[in-house]
């Protein structure tokens, strides 16, 4: 009896689903796991937890959501886990451009093609930071000084976004920089405050506290236009007062770090569509705007073909830099 009625109900559901928009076709039936490919407290972890909070607050799905951290091996742990969970629509992986960048330069056991891309939800900006009492006022001054003696540039991880940007600066600015990899941007920021390195290229949120505290200041932003106006960070300046690097003669118009969301491979298009829709709903809330503003990121939403195109473009560019540096794995 019960079997029959379940059958009838699901048949009815299928019929109804046919009439409703495609995104409503699949609904989760058990708890969902958000996998942050970073340790607790990192940028990716903050994103996963912010999305979790918004979904829970607005009850965007009936199922509970748990966030787990799998940040080992610069995030590879989380992606490998995603690859191993092929066909499981209850694992959502939160990452960065690492997903396609890491397989290019190190022998990790995954590639971004093993995963189903859902969306790129926010772009983190990069800035060039120097010590507060450094003599140079513009990126041009910085390059001049760097040409005279080899500067130490700090960054998070090796052969990752930070080092790629460093190599771009070297090439375009005609200087030689010694890149020192640290575990995280926060660590690089502290090293700059102590004067152990000459500069780093942190995201705004990674060095916000240090800027306010007067230990370091941004010279320029690697962005086509100035960052959006927000609250003042120091007594006199806010993000919108930081000139773009192009304005100052360092011709790198755009360099951004996308925050990406993935499902494991081999999920159905309906399942993927459900999560695309869910993330769109998250992005429409005031809490999301608040999160974006607090972390000084750029609000974007790329999905489907636009996301594929973005990944391909970024990959081409990375391949070029990586082959110039001899990083490509055989």
């Amino acid at each position, binding site marked *: 009896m019960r079997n029959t009625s379940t059958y009838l109900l699901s048949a009815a559901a299928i019929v109804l689903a046919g009439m409703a928009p495609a995104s409503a076709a699949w609904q989760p039936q058990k708890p969902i796991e958000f996998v942050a490919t970073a340790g607790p*407290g990192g940028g990716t972890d903050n994103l996963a937890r912010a999305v979790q909070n918004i979904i829970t607050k607005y009850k965007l799905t009936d199922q509970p959501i748990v966030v787990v951290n799998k940040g080992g091996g610069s995030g590879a742990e989380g992606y490998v886990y995603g690859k191993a969970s092929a066909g499981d629509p209850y694992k959502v992986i939160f990452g960065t451009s690492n997903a396609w960048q890491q397989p290019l330069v190190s022998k990790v056991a995954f590639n971004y093609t093993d995963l189903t891309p859902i969306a790129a939800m926010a772009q983190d900006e990069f800035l060039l930071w120097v010590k507060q009492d450094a003599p140079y006022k513009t990126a041009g001054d910085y390059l001049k000084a760097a040409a005279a003696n080899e500067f130490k540039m700090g960054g998070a991880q*090796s052969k990752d976004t930070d080092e790629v940007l460093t190599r771009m600066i070297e090439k375009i600015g005609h200087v030689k920089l010694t890149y020192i990899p640290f575990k995280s941007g926060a660590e690089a920021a502290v090293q700059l405050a102590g004067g152990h390195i000459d500069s780093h290229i942190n995201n705004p949120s990674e060095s916000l506290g240090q800027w306010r505290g007067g230990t370091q200041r941004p010279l320029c932003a690697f962005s086509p236009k100035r960052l959006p106006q927000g609250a003042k960070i120091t007594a006199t300046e806010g993000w919108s007062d930081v000139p773009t690097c192009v304005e100052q003669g360092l011709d790198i118009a755009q360099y951004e770090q996308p925050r990406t969301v993935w499902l494991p491979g081999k999920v159905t298009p309906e399942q993927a569509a459900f999560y695309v829709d869910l993330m769109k709903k998250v992005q429409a809330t005031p809490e999301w705007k608040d999160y974006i503003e*607090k972390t000084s990121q750029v609000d974007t939403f790329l999905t489907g073909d636009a996301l594929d195109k973005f990944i391909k473009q970024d990959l081409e560019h990375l391949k070029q830099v990586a082959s110039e540096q001899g990083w490509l794995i055989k």
Partner: protein
Amino acid sequence: MDNLQELLHGFGIAITLSHLALMVIGVLLGILVGVLPGLGAPNGVSLLLPLTFGMQPVSAIILLSSMYWGALFGGSVTSILFNIPGEPSSVATTFDGYPMARDGRPTTALATAFGSAAFGALVGVILITFLASWVAEVALAFGPPEYFAVYFLAFASFVGMGGAAPIKTVVALGIGFAIAAIGIDTVSGSVRLTMGVDELVKGVNFVVAVMGLFGIGELLVAVEEEFHARAVSSKIDWREVFRAVGRLPRHSVALLRSAAIGCWMGITPGGPTAASFMSYGIARRFSRRGRYFGTGEVEGIISPETADHAAGTSALLPMLSLGIPGSATAAVMMGGLMIWGLNPGPMLFVDQKDFVWGLIASMYVGNIVAVALVLLTVPVFAALMRIPFVVIAPLIVIICVVGAYSVSNSYLDVVMMMGFGIVGYLFKKLFYPLAPLVLAIVIGDKAEDAFRQSMLMSKGSLGIFFANRLVTCLVVAGIVLLLLPLALQLARMLLRKPALPGDPTTSQEKVII
């Protein structure tokens, strides 16, 4: 004193009925997650984090930090009773705590550990109160060469003073470094030593290694050696708790020395783990009863516990003032800080005085609450030792398996934990020391990163380790500690003194650390 006034203001914030209630709740929850291995402070704090979003930041941090204190105390309980350290920093506590508990004195061991831990924490908070700004500056002076020098010092203080045959210590260290190297290398970005196992890219988690090496390893030895005689009859004696705490002042030299080591390692980024190991190594060297270390010596418990808590407490300062989290737990709290709308960093002390001083005041009160609560529970925990071995042994296996699995929900970790159990067993049977192995697993990769970062900075010149006064002092101290035993031996040989007749320590005892 400006700071004193701020502190009094802070006490006004911290001592309210609701905040005291939060402290008690936090400490109790903390003891619970601390006692259950595998759960641990970082997981406990992240589980609790979402509940704090609606709270005032001060109340939220009081709840979370109280939980942290509770978990630190709770972690020592399993180290002492079952030889399973819940946190890297409580490994050194097992060296003498576990033998003492096995010897039928679990109450004394626990009470001594808690008492000295409370003393260490107190010294740490006092340091934060009066030297906040100075401490922040000291931490800034640490670049890669200085980091390396601190780790080198920790290794040296331990290796030079260990009791085992030097070559065995070196072998254990080497294996530890190799295990620490598994996974992605920070400096080159390449994958190392995964031996074809994809998941190993994440590296070997400390908890997994330690639960196997100590928990399972000890169990295997016990099963083989003295299956029947393991149940310990311990009387539940409330007075012993106070007597043990009362005896602490007799060891004031050890207490003060360990607190000093702890604070120094907490401010400099050596951290609680390096601090507790170093403190234990130095205590062993300078104590008159040094040769008995590893068999249940009181000072062998006092030294690592005091240093651990002194370092753990003073390490919160770099987190607040510089935004560098000193531990996984601190990292989760920092995430919380940002969600509450606060930015850790130098401005926190200026912008958010209520928050900072409320927190510091709550460290005083929270630690007092924590120590009172744990001392009350000592007899309960000690009673666990009366459970017969045949009952407790399967429980330990279950705890280790669940603990290893819950680190990152992975079966591979469970398998590795069992593998480490066998390694631990072999080490014990072959008289290899476990401590250098654990120390190398925990801080080996950090030491390696710091060394290679230094080499990048200096373009391969070792001169960078003698480039300024701070780093030179640290390196020279390390070399001295490393060579001290050798020099003493040489001096003895030159003076043609005959070897000490009838060394009363057996090789078994010596090898425990």
